[in-house]
């Protein structure tokens, strides 16, 4: 395992679509990140009076302006709308033309932590007469209700919209879904099962039930007085994550397939590995042991060493336990290199959109490679003594970036690491 086999199939990113708080396309998203602006604010999607955490990072999303038809808007949960809009952006960006002959060699892999919860909750309120009747009135069920109950609908909508007829699935591994869905897609391409995958993740969790469930375990920040500065990864005053929403979807393509049509390549997927901490559904041990193991395995797959990593896109959720856990994992996996490489968390700006964020962070990583610029960790002013790495506080940094490590950590104990590389990096 010393070098990537010559001629091996490899997945590369040739198109990017992003729907993020503070920016409804790739350009606006990157501007937000490099300006170090935050998109966290008071919740407007519902009346959050009485909730512990009343702040979130919301998308200024207008489905009609994004090109969705009235029927699509009625049928699709907000998370599905995000995914379809991003898939269209990504396909347009990739320059892939619709081709029925390619449909069977095109698949879809979408990640989501909470699926169509927003639609499920809204319909429950109708069916139960505002929550008064547990034995819901069956005669009020709308036709697309079943589509809300099964999260696979998110993949169905993207597949139908993009004309994919290859393998289609939804990955739902909580907050690592966005990395896991793209990693899964890359494997299908490497195995030769497909040439093109529409892959990414989406979540629209800013609805009462999801906000309340994080309230109940005090995972989210209660800093309602100052929403713009509430997401403070690695800062000593951090007090929980700020819920976000959004999506990122990619065109993932077999490297030679992309080369033959002269496609622009943003990045190559070099390594991907997951581990479980088998410790606790929500708790993390401070030693970061299993995340470190995932990072080591991803580096082995990528045939790189710690010295090759130019930037770490951290999970950096801003909970007390996560940021310490993760810092320990970087040190365990990378040794001295952990102190030399810039590390940042874009959740400081766009919040934590659960399953979607892993893909949004892949987008940020690919753009960091493209622009040789590392996005900052906003709101980091007073560093936690236990978080003693270079977290790129407040301001973006020009930095030669060829190889990025991006990681995620989620409920269930899941730890995922992915290594992305600049196109053609191993050829020189």
């Amino acid at each position, binding site marked *: 395992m010393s070098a990537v086999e010559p001629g091996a199939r490899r997945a590369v990113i040739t198109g990017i679509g992003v729907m993020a708080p503070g920016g409804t396309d790739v350009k606006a998203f990157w501007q937000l990140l490099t300006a170090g602006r935050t998109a966290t604010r008071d919740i407007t999607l519902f009346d959050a009076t009485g909730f512990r955490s009343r702040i979130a990072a919301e998308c200024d999303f207008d489905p009609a302006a994004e090109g969705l038809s009235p029927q699509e808007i009625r049928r699709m949960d907000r998370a599905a709308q995000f995914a379809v809009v991003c898939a269209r952006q990504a396909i347009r960006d990739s320059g892939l033309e619709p081709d029925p002959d390619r449909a069977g060699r095109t*698949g879809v892999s979408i990640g989501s932590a909470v699926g169509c919860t927003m639609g*499920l909750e809204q319909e429950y309120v109708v069916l139960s007469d505002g929550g008064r009747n547990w034995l819901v009135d069956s005669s009020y069920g709308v036709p697309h209700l079943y589509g809300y109950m099964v999260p696979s609908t998110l993949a169905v909508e993207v597949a139908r919209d993009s004309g994919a*007829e290859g393998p289609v699935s939804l990955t739902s*591994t909580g907050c690592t879904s966005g990395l896991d869905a793209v990693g899964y897609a890359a494997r299908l391409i490497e195995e030769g*099962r497909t040439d093109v995958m529409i892959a990414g993740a989406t979540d629209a969790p800013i609805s009462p039930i999801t906000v309340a469930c994080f309230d109940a375990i005090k995972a989210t920040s209660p800093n309602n007085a100052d929403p713009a500065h509430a997401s403070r990864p690695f800062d000593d005053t951090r007090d929980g994550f700020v819920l976000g929403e959004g999506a990122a979807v990619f065109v993932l393509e077999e490297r030679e397939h992309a080369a033959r049509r002269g496609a622009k390549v943003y990045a190559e997927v070099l390594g991907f590995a997951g581990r479980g901490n088998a410790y606790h559904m929500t708790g993390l041990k401070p030693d970061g042991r299993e995340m470190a193991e995932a990072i080591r395995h991803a580096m082995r*797959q990528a045939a790189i060493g710690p010295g090759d990593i130019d930037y770490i896109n951290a999970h950096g959720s801003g909970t007390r336990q996560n940021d310490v856990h993760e810092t320990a994992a970087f040190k365990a996996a990378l040794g001295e290199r952990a102190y030399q490489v810039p590390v940042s968390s874009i959740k400081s700006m766009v919040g934590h959109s659960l399953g979607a964020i892993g893909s949004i962070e892949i987008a940020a990583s690919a753009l960091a490679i493209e622009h040789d610029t590392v996005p900052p960790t906003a709101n980091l002013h007073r560093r936690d003594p236990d978080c003693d790495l270079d977290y790129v506080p407040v301001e973006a940094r020009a930095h030669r970036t060829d190889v990025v490590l991006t990681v995620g950590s989620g409920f269930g104990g899941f730890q995922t690491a992915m290594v992305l590389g600049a196109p053609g990096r191993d050829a020189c």
Partner: protein
Amino acid sequence: MLTTAGTAPERAVVTGLGIVAPNGLGSADYWAATLRGQSGIARLSRFDPSSYPTTLGGEIAGFTTRGTVPGRIVPQTDRWTHFGLYATELALTDAGVDPADLDEYEMAVVTASSSGGTEFGQREIQALWSHGPDHVGAYQSIAWFYAATTGQISIRHGMRGPCGVLAAEQAGGLDALAHARRLLGDGPRLVVSGGTDASLCPYGLVAQQAGGRLSPVTDPARAYLPFDRDATGYVPGEGGAIMIVEAHTTAAARGARIYGEVAGHAATFDPGPHSGRPPALRRAVELALRDAAIPAEAVDVVFADGAGVPELDRVEAEAIEAVFGPYGVPVTVPKTLTGRLYAGGGSLDAATALLCLRDGVIPPTAGVDRIAADYRLDLVTGAPRTAPVRTALVLARGYGGFNSALVLRAPGSTTD
């Protein structure tokens, strides 16, 4: 990415079955019930279904968490996870595996989920809307989401390898087994895989009703009749199957009993109804056979998806005939005794197929006796059929257009 999958393919074998089905808990009881045609479909008993258009379901009527799920975990998890945890215990015992003896990173968990913790989620949404946000319990965040079962299995057994959760409605259970096989090429030696489901609560039933495919028939013996002239839809069920999938070399080295090999898989997706393009199930079958490197003639039995919805039955009958010829292969749908179990359904069919390979007995499609005339299928009906079965094809389709095909092969079939 550099994985060992491409260079040193590791054959994936199933060494343990854990079955939680409406007509039997544990593979022995389930298999006996299936062969004698004992149904688990009855009027729903966990709530009063009289105001619902569908009143039937395949409930796990006798299930109790006492002695099957650790007491501390019970209130933290939904019924779907209870089934998953118990099925995992059964599968590990059946495989003769003690996870404490194995390397923590060489054990992985990949399950399918169709609708997550439906009943738990309904209860908490109800609490929120009737009493306010302070009344949502601390466990909603870990019980309802689709990854809960995989996470709990990983934690309970100290399995620290890759964790996965795939959702493709009824097709997800087969996709999970295929992913388990994939993971064996990249480090893990043992994968807990399969799926369960439990969505027979009021909100779950209304949502399934909205899907438009549930049978309105109230006679338990006549409600779910795939490929029959009287097909009117399907009956929903709960439960599923968890399997222990091991690297062949590891299983052989410890002298494990092998049910069969996961030899091939493919997944495809149907084009939209107005696209004018053909459905993709046939292509899934052909790709799965190619993945297993076998011709159609090598398949001895097909476990069909059997939607019970005439338009869907027709598509499946035509795909099977196109690949195997008219009446070309025995076809069966034993899930007429359990109802469709969603994420648990594909997994249970795969487990049933492995029992069929073990015993050389094809279970019948109970209840079906008048096959629609233009389906040229050799549907096994009435009584079990004894036959030399070495290779089984399992089909599953998920709501929205998912097709999944899995090839299972008896041990000793090829190069053992």
